[in-house]
């Protein structure tokens, strides 16, 4: 059977765009930590790409999108992508797209979701334990939850093998629940498991490179067009709606976060602009194909405002969610998922619904709340248990000395910046040594 070249091109391009978001996130987070822990922060994202990609091929895709399971997981029928390669996936268009294009596009979502969590435990997590956590969390939380929300089974609604939230009619176009509420709740759980950084909140742990943060937010914004508009799985009218709403909500998020800062703190900060953009992006994600452009402006305004206020909660409740995964992803995800109940309109997408402001009553809001809090509760509980088990067995925190000296040197044997141009090193092993091989010292 023929495939749609245009739709395939757009989905493949979108997959690459979504992949770029994870390095973008690494810059966004990396700039916010101190110079002694930027490499560790960025590595927490990079290793996620490696781990989740391999798990996805082994069984992740099958658990998320396989056809052999029930409403809670997809089963193991597609292990090793065995029945996927060479197959075609219906995407609602006249011609289908290759199944591998769909599988790779969805892989990128599975990668960035655990990476998002890392911001909650900056500067202090043992790296090997983080790597183990990523593999287990993807397995126990992301893959099943992606099935709940994103797997529509054989046909549009109520089909065979669909996820239980998709079957209930929960609307989440690109991952407000499965990605953002999910990662935000997990971040909250891990912040409790690992505890506060030494010195927090009395000591100022100021961002060491705000241009990195702005660069990261720009890469996220760019990649997010793939995340949202790509979720249409084709180069079609729905993709255009998602593209427009993504742009507008994000732009409004920048402005409304800065407005809060101007009123509350007096200054318009670069960190605030970058954060407002991400808050807007997070909130429009579930709603992007279901709301009008004006609805998107309203959602961006709500997200920028509420997230700017929510980042203060950690000080009130005393949990060191270091880079505000809760304040931005959990709160932003909730704002967007619930806002569908208010602003959704079938005038932009007949597969959507009408929210409260478009004559739809409160039903949609109720369904959205069920979806949001089901994912929130599941992620919070499972992550808490998983985090505590890893903390008691492998240990989840580096030593006090390593944390204060800097986690980059302790965990990676590297430092990010060399600002002193003098010498001061001598070869121990390897290429750099001038000694005869027999005289080389072995670095035990």
């Amino acid at each position, binding site marked *: 059977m023929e495939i749609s070249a245009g739709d395939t091109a757009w989905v493949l391009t979108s997959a690459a765009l979504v992949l770029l978001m994870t390095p973008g996130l690494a810059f966004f987070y990396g700039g916010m930590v101190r110079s002694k822990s930027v490499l560790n922060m960025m590595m927490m994202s990079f290793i996620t790409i490696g781990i989740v990609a391999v798990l996805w091929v082994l069984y992740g895709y099958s658990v998320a999108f396989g056809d052999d399971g029930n409403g809670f997981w997809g089963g193991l029928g597609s292990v090793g992508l065995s029945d996927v390669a060479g197959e075609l996936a219906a995407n609602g268009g006249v011609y289908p797209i290759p199944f591998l294009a769909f599988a790779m596009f969805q892989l990128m979502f599975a990668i960035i979701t655990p990476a998002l969590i890392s911001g909650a435990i900056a500067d202090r997590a043992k790296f090997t334990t983080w790597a183990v956590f990523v593999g287990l969390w993807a397995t126990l939380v992301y893959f099943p939850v992606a099935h709940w929300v994103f797997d529509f089974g054989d046909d549009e609604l109520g089909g065979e093998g669909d996820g239980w939230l998709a079957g209930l009619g929960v609307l989440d176009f690109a991952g407000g629940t499965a990605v953002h509420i999910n990662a935000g709740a997990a971040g909250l759980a891990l912040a409790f498991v690992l505890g506060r950084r030494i010195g927090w*909140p009395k000591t*100022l742990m100021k961002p060491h490179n705000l241009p990195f943060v702005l660069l990261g937010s720009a890469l996220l914004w760019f990649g997010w067009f793939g995340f949202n508009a790509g979720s249409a799985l084709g180069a079609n009218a729905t993709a255009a709606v998602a593209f427009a709403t993504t742009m507008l909500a994000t732009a409004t998020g920048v402005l409304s976060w800065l407005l*809060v800062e101007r009123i509350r*703190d007096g200054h318009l*900060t670069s*960190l605030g602009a970058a954060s407002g953009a991400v808050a807007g992006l997070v909130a429009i994600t579930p709603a992007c194909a279901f709301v009008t452009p004006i609805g998107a402006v309203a959602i961006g305004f709500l997200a920028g405002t509420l997230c700017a206020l929510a980042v203060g909660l950690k000080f009130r409740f005393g949990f060191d969610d270091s880079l505000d995964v809760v304040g931005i992803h959990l709160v932003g995800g909730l704002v967007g998922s619930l806002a569908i109940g208010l602003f959704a309109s079938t005038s932009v997408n007949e597969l959507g619904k009408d929210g409260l402001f478009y004559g739809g009553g409160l039903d949609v809001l109720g369904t959205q709340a069920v979806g949001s809090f089901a994912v929130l509760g599941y992620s919070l509980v499972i992550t808490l248990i998983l985090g505590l088990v890893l903390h008691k067995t492998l240990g989840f925190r580096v030593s006090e000395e390593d944390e204060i000296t800097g986690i980059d040197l302790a965990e990676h044997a590297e430092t990010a910046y060399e600002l002193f141009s003098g010498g001061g090193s001598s070869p121990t092993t390897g290429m750099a040594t001038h000694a005869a091989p027999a005289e080389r010292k072995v670095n035990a």
Partner: protein
Amino acid sequence: MKLVTAVIKPFKLDDVRSALESFGVHGMTVSEASGYGRQKGHTEVYRGAEYTVDLVPKIRLEVLLDDGDVDDVVEVIVKTSQTGRIGDGKVWVIPIDSVVRVRTGERGVEAL
């Protein structure tokens, strides 16, 4: 011989440097420093969390001088770096036992 050390506001460095140049001082060492005096620090706000940063950025400027030039040079530095506001900095003078110019091996006043 004396060592004159001045801690001044960073934006005054160019003024002080050109004033010293026209006075006839041909060399100096400049470094970035941070510290505080009576003005204490300034406040920074990150995502709404407000912190007082105690250490304020300053410039430390060091000049080696023959005894006879010291009073004039100190006056030039003070006059050019003064704004009259809190945080203008300090200038102090300490005696130096010996100085060697590395290139030629000259010692004492010859090395200045």
